[in-house]
């Protein structure tokens, strides 16, 4: 214990001083509390004891010193009365409960230990991908619970129970004045079928799978009315779908808020790069020889990349005018080439979708191939075009960080737009390109010849996309990754070694997830079980990707910064959400629902069930709802939101200014300190010289 007191370096005294000054306000307030009333004394002492203990824990004293100080504190505390001792015991028990609760929560959190291991071995960027995947699993699971509770389970119950209750009345509205052809819907063809066709049906959601709870077409527009209980299934279906999208939006924005706050606090990722890498680059939790070596190589690579960017910037600044003009014209040309590639992919998807829809009468494996043709073309496009864009990026010669961002933006654009093109093509076919007088669409206002139940068809397309996405990933894993690893490990050819093991590229994998989630959002209105399917898919993804990561991959040398990347992933997810929301809104508002199937077979569009339900409510509620929907409410709301937004922006700017001011002041304080130290030195010298004489 004596040794601790002797080793009193000047730095430690600085630490103690700064901590003491920081603690002072709380001490003062405790003093005031103590003086104010005497019967609260004992309680305040108790609380003060807790505070003292906490402060003691935060000090950098050695363990022995802390124990000695604690002893002194305990001796200074007044005599413990029985009520006090009970309070102390209670606080001790609470503390123990809190720490064990924290342990339990850590145990229950999904995949917590696995994520820690991934982060330790492969870094924060890869870990952020798996965290994002976990977020999507939880989101989809909650969505499935929502849909099941309000749509699927009531449908199941009412279809079983409907006719056995004597007091219920079930209204199955059939369209009285619709043509008979519009009501024809035969999902299950009669006659003998080959046995393998069941497997094909499973993959494409047709025939025996079509008329099930999986797709929109099975739900009926029952309105169950009991004595004091009524449940309107169509209304529930629509409102649940709308609420589901809104709920997902809120979750994404909440998560983005927490991630963005961290990113803003650090003040951008380019400031303080080198010092950050040197002092915070090492992960102390790294275990094992291999992980340590990888981490060291990772840090080395980050530094080298940053140094290279510096060198590039210097070279760019030193370019002559002629070189600059050449480079910029090259960049513009390459931009158009990339755009041309993407448009070519879109045209390919458009043609493939049309071809697939026109030739649906084939049988056997050819029919499966035609069914999956749009998915195949989309996946091929998503594979080939980014590779070509990478080659283009080599010509453009941007800085490495700009190149990564550009590649990502191009890939996002390609993926989401190809999905949009597929949907637009389908819509055009369903609505006969908007021409209600054409032969197929005249009777029922939609193409009832090719699409007797168009919502189910849309749901089937989304189902196929999800399934195909999953199957392709698994196939790539089994047929490409594992063999590649085996070849690289066992064949010491130079070319093979240069090719090397697969790198786990985070951005490409995240785009895959965003694409999958967008498909789920788009399809949930027409295929209510799709969130459940995607939960299973994402869970399996997690395990497959984990196995792939640990067995086949080496860590990507180009690491993604984990803080800004989370915000970027969520922003891309938000773009996907906007696309899905646009699709759903258009389907709800514009297209005439199928007359032969589904919960909305009577209405002229899906949304019209809401106004007709509102008319059943009481007068006051109706007036209130109409008022909210009217312009008299919407415009002031808009203006108010603009005002609030302006206020927040001004506040943020003010805080930013004060932060930079404070930083400048810190610098000035340091210089003042130096100046004063110099003055002190001079003064002591001046005073010493006369003394020594």
């Amino acid at each position, binding site marked *: 214990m004596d040794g601790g007191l002797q080793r009193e370096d000047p730095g430690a005294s600085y630490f103690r001083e700064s901590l003491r000054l920081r603690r002072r306000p709380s001490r003062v307030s405790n003093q005031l509390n103590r003086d104010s009333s005497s019967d609260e004394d004992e309680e305040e002492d108790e609380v003060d004891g807790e505070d003292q203990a906490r402060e003691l824990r935060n000090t950098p004293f050695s363990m022995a010193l802390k124990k000695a100080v604690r002893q002194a504190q305990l001796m200074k505390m007044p005599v413990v009365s029985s009520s006090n001792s009970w309070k102390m015991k209670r606080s001790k028990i609470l503390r123990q409960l809190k720490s064990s609760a924290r342990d339990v929560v850590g145990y229950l959190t999904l995949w917590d230990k696995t994520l820690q291991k991934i982060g330790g071995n492969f870094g924060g960027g890869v870990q952020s991908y798996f965290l994002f995947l976990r977020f999507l699993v939880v989101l989809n699971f909650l969505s499935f619970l929502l849909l099941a509770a309000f749509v699927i389970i009531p449908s199941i119950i009412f279809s079983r129970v409907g006719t056995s209750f004597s007091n219920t009345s079930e209204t199955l509205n059939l369209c009285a004045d619709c043509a008979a052809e519009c009501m024809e819907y035969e999902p299950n063809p009669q006659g003998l079928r080959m046995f393998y066709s069941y497997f094909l049906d499973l993959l494409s959601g047709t025939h025996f799978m079509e008329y099930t709870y999986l797709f929109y077409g099975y739900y009926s527009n029952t309105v169950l009315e009991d004595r004091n209980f009524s449940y309107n299934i169509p209304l529930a279906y629509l409102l649940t779908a709308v609420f589901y999208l809104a709920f997902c939006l809120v979750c994404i924005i909440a998560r983005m808020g927490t991630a963005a706050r961290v990113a803003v606090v650090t003040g951008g990722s380019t400031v303080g790069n080198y010092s950050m890498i040197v*002092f915070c680059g090492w992960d102390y939790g790294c275990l094992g020889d291999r992980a340590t070596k990888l981490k060291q190589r990772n840090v080395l690579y980050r530094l080298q990349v940053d140094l290279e960017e510096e060198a590039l910037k210097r070279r760019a600044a030193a370019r002559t005018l002629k070189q600059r003009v050449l480079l910029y014209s090259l960049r513009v040309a390459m931009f158009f080439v990339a755009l041309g590639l993407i448009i070519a992919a879109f045209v390919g998807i458009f043609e493939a979708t049309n071809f697939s829809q026109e030739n649906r009468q084939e049988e056997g494996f050819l029919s499966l191939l035609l069914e999956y043709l749009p998915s195949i073309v989309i996946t091929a496009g998503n594979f080939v075009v980014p590779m070509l864009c990478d080659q283009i990026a080599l010509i453009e010669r941007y800085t490495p960080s700009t190149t990564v961002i550009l590649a990502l933006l191009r890939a996002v654009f390609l993926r989401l737009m190809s999905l949009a093109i597929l949907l637009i093509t389908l819509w055009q076919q369903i609505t006969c390109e908007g021409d209600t007088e054409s032969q197929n669409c005249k009777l029922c206002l939609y193409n009832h010849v090719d699409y007797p139940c168009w919502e189910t068809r849309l749901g089937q397309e989304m189902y196929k996309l999800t399934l195909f996405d999953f199957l392709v990933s698994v196939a790539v894993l089994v047929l490409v990754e594992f063999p590649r690893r085996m070849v690289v490990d066992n064949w010491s050819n130079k070319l093979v070694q240069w090719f090397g093991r697969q790198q786990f590229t985070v951005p490409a994998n995240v785009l895959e997830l965003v694409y999958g989630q967008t498909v789920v959002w788009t399809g949930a209105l027409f295929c209510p079980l799709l969130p459940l399917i995607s939960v299973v898919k994402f869970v399996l993804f997690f395990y497959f990707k984990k196995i792939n990561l640990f067995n086949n991959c080496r860590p990507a040398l180009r690491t993604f910064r984990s803080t800004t990347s989370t915000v970027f992933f969520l922003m891309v997810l938000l773009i996907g959400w906007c696309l899905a929301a646009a699709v759903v809104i258009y389907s709800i508002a514009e297209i005439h629902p199928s007359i032969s199937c589904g919960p909305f077979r009577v209405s002229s569009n899906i949304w019209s069930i809401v106004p007709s339900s509102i008319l059943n409510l009481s007068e006051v509620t109706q007036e209130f709802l109409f008022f909210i929907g009217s312009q008299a409410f919407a415009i002031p709301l808009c203006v108010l939101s603009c005002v609030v937004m302006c206020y927040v922006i001004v506040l943020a700017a003010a805080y930013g200014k004060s932060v930079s001011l404070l930083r400048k002041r810190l610098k000035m304080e340091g210089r003042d300190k130096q100046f004063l130290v110099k003055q002190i030195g001079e003064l002591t010298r001046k005073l010493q010289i006369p003394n020594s004489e």
Partner: protein
Amino acid sequence: MGNKQTIFTDEQLDAYQVSLFVRLSSRLHGRYHELAPHLVPMDYTNEPDCKLPLALIVNMPELKENPFRNRIVESFSEDGQGNLSFNEFVDMFSVLSEMAPRELKAIYAFKIYDFNVDNYLCKEDLEKTLNKLTKEELTPEEVELVCEKAIEEADLDGDNKLSFADFENMISRAPDFLSTFHIRI
């Protein structure tokens, strides 16, 4: 390790618990014991005064591969030579656990990176840190450049070396400092 139970009195356990962030358990003492079974007694009720040398502590699997293992142990030892008593051992893992606050971790991180123990991170300290980080794979010019840039970025008072205030200010802008400066035991 066997199935011997560590012997502490209740007051001792309490005193530890108040000052620590990591949960004291017989497992922690067991880890300390198994580093030198013949030196460390199981019965701690009489507060025996035994210290384990640096060479034994850095053999722990959590520290074995860490390039800064020597500096970590030295920063937590009272004599500055790396000899840790059980108190200091437990203190070390407490500060390196995930619940310790940022200020405390920053203090000890500064001590770890301060190789010449002069309470400033000067250029030589940075060069040593960098060499340990990258296993000396950078060229000397690159090391020079990186150290210069690092000091330039973080130095606020312009004395060409980093004081604790500069270091703490830089750490406050690092979002993953808390998660990287963390050893699980």
